[in-house]
Each structure stands twice: as C-alpha cells, then as structure tokens.
C-alpha cells in the first residue's frame, strides 16, 4: 500500500510540475528548460522554513512565493531575449540554481537538507498532492477559458500583433512565469516535507527535461493531455526500472519521436483517433 501511495503522490507532484510548465510554454509560448530549479527553490525555501520552526502551511506557501518571485525575475529576463535564446537562459537558470545550492553551507551543500519536520502521514501527503494537482487542473482549464488564456494565445502566436491590439505582452509573460513557477514551488514544498530530505540532484537538468517530456509527450497546450503525460512518465520508470539509469536517453528519444510523428502529443493522437473513428462510423450504413 505504501508503495502505491508514494507512486500516487509522485504522480500528483509531476502533474503539478508539468501543468505549471504547460502554462508557461503551452499557453504563453515561452520555452523553459529549467523548470526543476523552481521545484528546487520551493523545496529548499519550504524546508528552511520548517527547520526554522515555522508551521507547515506557512512553509509551503513560502516555497510557492519564493519560486514564484524567482519566476518573475526569469520572466523579466524573458522579455529581453529572443525565443531560441530563452531556452539557453532558462537552462542556465537551472545550472545556476544547482551551482549555488551545491556550494552554500547554509543550504547543506552536496548533502542537502535533512531532518525536515514531517507533519503528515503517507495518506496525508497523497491527499494533499492529489488535491493540489486537481486544483491545478481546474485552474488550467479555467485559464484556458478566461481572457487571460486568450491573451496568452495571442502572445504565443504573434507578440507584435498582440502589442498592436493593446495587449501588455510583458505583463502576460511575467504572469505566466509567476503562476507556472509558483506551482512548481508548491510541488517542491510538499516533496520536501514528504521525503524529509532534499539533495541538489533531485532538481537537476534531467528533472527539467523529464518535466518537459511530460508536457510534450502529453500534448503541449492541452491540460488533460499533459496530465496523461505526467502520469505516463511517472509510471514508466516504475514499471521498467532500467529507465531510471537512462532517463535522459529515453526521454530525449521520446521527445524527438513525438515532435516528429505527433507534434500534438498524446492529446493530438487521441483527437486524431476519435476523428477517424467518427469518420468510420459515419461511413457505415445506418
């Protein structure tokens, strides 16, 4: 039972991470190759708060805010650089984060932070993570329907045209980065308390690519597709242990395969299948 609970919890955390990135990349069209850094920021900030004796909810919210505030900073950087360069900048943010935590004694350096107080049991974390994931699914679906979502779409498709119809492109990019990275911070806070120990490597480049793979494989821009992608990539390494050793290779290959054969990911595949099924059904004599 414990095993399934922990897989479910990680699955929910991955859903939160992937949906956060999907908001930035899928909705607003901004590349990010360093999403794990915000996961880490949330984890470290929340862990430090709890170790310092602050209550659990305060620690988790602090993790969200710290990640979100750094997200705003990266969002502001995103205003200054072209799209292809943003990939490099966000990747750099990821490495910078790792470089800093690895060297700082007060962050535990390579050893990370241990003995983080844990106020909940396994069920508690599972329910909390799943609840947060559901909330994020609902938020994503809402954003898509709202005028924020439509404005994100305009920014993603043509920034200059968006500006010329009065859309504050900078403001929307920053908003996307804030929401997306705060979500990652939330996942980080839950993760830190659940495992009670965090090390820098949990938030490395491979983790960033894994989150990106969930988004792309699920179908960038599609909320439910991304949820499917996150669940799939949570279960895969559980079922095929060897994947753990070759994550970058396996996910990299999957990423390329999806971009080549089904750019809209699982979501696009399902849509296509549904359409073919419908067409077949339609042709059948009544």
């Amino acid at each position, binding site marked *: 039972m414990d095993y399934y609970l922990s897989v479910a919890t990680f699955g929910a955390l991955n859903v939160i991470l992937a949906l956060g990135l999907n908001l930035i990349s899928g909705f607003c069209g901004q590349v990010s190759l360093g999403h794990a850094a915000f996961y880490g920021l949330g984890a470290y900030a929340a862990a430090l708060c709890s170790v310092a004796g602050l209550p659990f909810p305060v620690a988790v919210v602090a993790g969200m805010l710290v990640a979100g505030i750094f997200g705003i900073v990266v969002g502001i950087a995103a205003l200054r650089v072209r799209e292809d360069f943003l990939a490099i900048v966000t990747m750099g943010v990821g490495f910078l984060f790792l470089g800093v935590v690895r060297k700082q004694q007060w962050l535990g350096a390579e050893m990370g932070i241990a003995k983080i107080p844990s106020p909940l049991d396994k069920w508690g974390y599972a329910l909390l993570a799943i609840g947060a994931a559901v909330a994020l699914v609902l938020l994503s679906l*809402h*954003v898509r*329907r*709202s*005028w*924020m979502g*439509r*404005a994100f*779409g*305009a920014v993603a*498709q*043509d920034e*200059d*045209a*968006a*500006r*010329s*119809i*009065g*859309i*504050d*492109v900078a*403001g*929307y990019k*920053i*908003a996307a980065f804030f929401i997306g990275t705060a979500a990652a911070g939330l996942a980080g806070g839950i993760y830190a308390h659940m495992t009670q120990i965090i090390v820098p490597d949990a938030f490395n480049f491979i983790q960033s690519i894994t989150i990106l793979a969930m988004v792309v494989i699920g179908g960038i821009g599609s909320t439910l597709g991304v949820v499917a992608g996150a669940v799939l990539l949570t279960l895969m390494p559980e079922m095929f242990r060897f994947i753990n050793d070759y994550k970058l290779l396996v996910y990299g290959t999957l990423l390329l395969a999806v971009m080549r054969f089904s750019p809209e990911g699982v979501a696009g595949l399902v849509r296509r299948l549904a359409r073919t099924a419908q067409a077949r059904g339609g042709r059948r004599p009544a």
Partner: protein
Amino acid sequence: MMLEGNRLSIAFGGVRAVTDVTLRVERGELVGLIGPNGAGKTTLLRLLTGVLVPDAGSVAFEARDVTRTSIHRRAQMGFVLTHQIVRPFRDMSLLENVMVAAAANLTRRPWRALVAVEAQPARARARSLLERLGIADAADKPAHSVPLGYLKRMQVARALALGPRLLLLDEPLAGLNYSEATRLADLIVELNAGGITIVLVEHNLSEVTRIARRLVVLHNGAVLAEGAPREVMTRKDVRDAYLGNEPAVGAAHA
C-alpha cells in the same frame, strides 16, 4: 491636433530610412501617405506608433508626448496601426482574432483577465465587424487557411474592434480585387466620416486620390510634396519620383 510627428529620423545601419520628417494630422482628417517603394512610408508609420524608436524627433498623440510610450499603451489610448505584412494569430479563427481585440478592456490587465470569462459581447462585436468588412463568411476558418485579401480586411476589423480614434493603415487594399478594394475604400471614408482620423498608406493611387483629402508624398525618407490630391499628383517632382522607381507604380504588394 490629433497626431504630430515632429522632425523624425531613423537610420538602419547606413540606410537613412526616414530623415527629418514632420507630419501633422488634424482631428477628423483622412490623409493619404504615398511614395515609391522604399520611400520610408512603413518606417514612418512604425515610428509614429512606437514599433520603432526614432533616433531623433518626437511623436505627440492628442497633444501628449508619446515618443517613449509602449505600443500596447498607445493602442489602448486609441492610436492603432495595421501592419503592411499581415500579422494574424495564425491558429485562431478570423472571429477569434477580432474577439481578442474586442475584449481589450478585459485583457488590459492580466489579473483582471484571469477572472473574466464572458465572451459573448466580444464575440457579437467581432462578428458584426467581420460583416462590416464583408468577410463574415470565413469567420470560423483558421487565419492560416484564408487568402491574403481576407487577412487584410481582418486586420482592419481587428483594429476597429479597439475603438480607435486614430487609425494608421499600411496598404489595406493590397491583395484585394478591384471591387473589394473599392468597397474597403468606401468603408474607410465611412469610418472617417464616423469620427476616426485616418492615415492611409497605399500604392493603389486611384483609390487614395479618390478618398484622401490631403496627400503627403514621401521620397527617399523625406517629405517631397503635400497638399490636395489633384495638385500633388500633377507635380513634376512627384511624377519623377514615381517614374524613377517605375515598377512601383501600381505594383501589387503584400
């Protein structure tokens, strides 16, 4: 004074695209801005709307200095540009393209936009604008799938959805056939009569001279002539400017 571009200059590398150009537009005017290819018309419009920041000179809109005001702020103020090269949101339908502009009051601030879901008023307004432009038949087609003439008119609809007081149109008639062009030109006159001040860049000289009450001729990045269409078009220097760039006359443009 609706718009005042004061001694504007900009150079790209060695190319002096616009040099010391002053353009004044009174409230309610319909000004035609013409000139051969590469004269600097698009560059001047970009300087006026803030897409480009001038090397020298200033821009005032309704007597407020907007030289450093961002494009989106100017658009929100009612000072709107349509691009010569069409810039649709490619994956949105024509209707959705216009809707985003029609909801400008809701999208002005991201956090306000997050709590706004009501789309019906914007949809209705967008549809009526598409009808006005004569392209409602393609309302639900994605922008990447419709011909240039539709996109050109969609851009005008999208600009109108913002409720502009000053509209700068960069070759809106390009890509339209004869009757479509006449119809859009008539609509431009109608919009102007309805209170929108308009600056129109056009290569379709017969339509500009027909509808504009004042022409400004740009040549090599400077103002060559300005005045009533009939007088300007008969001037020898204006004719020479066009003849020196023969392919420009009546050339089709995207």
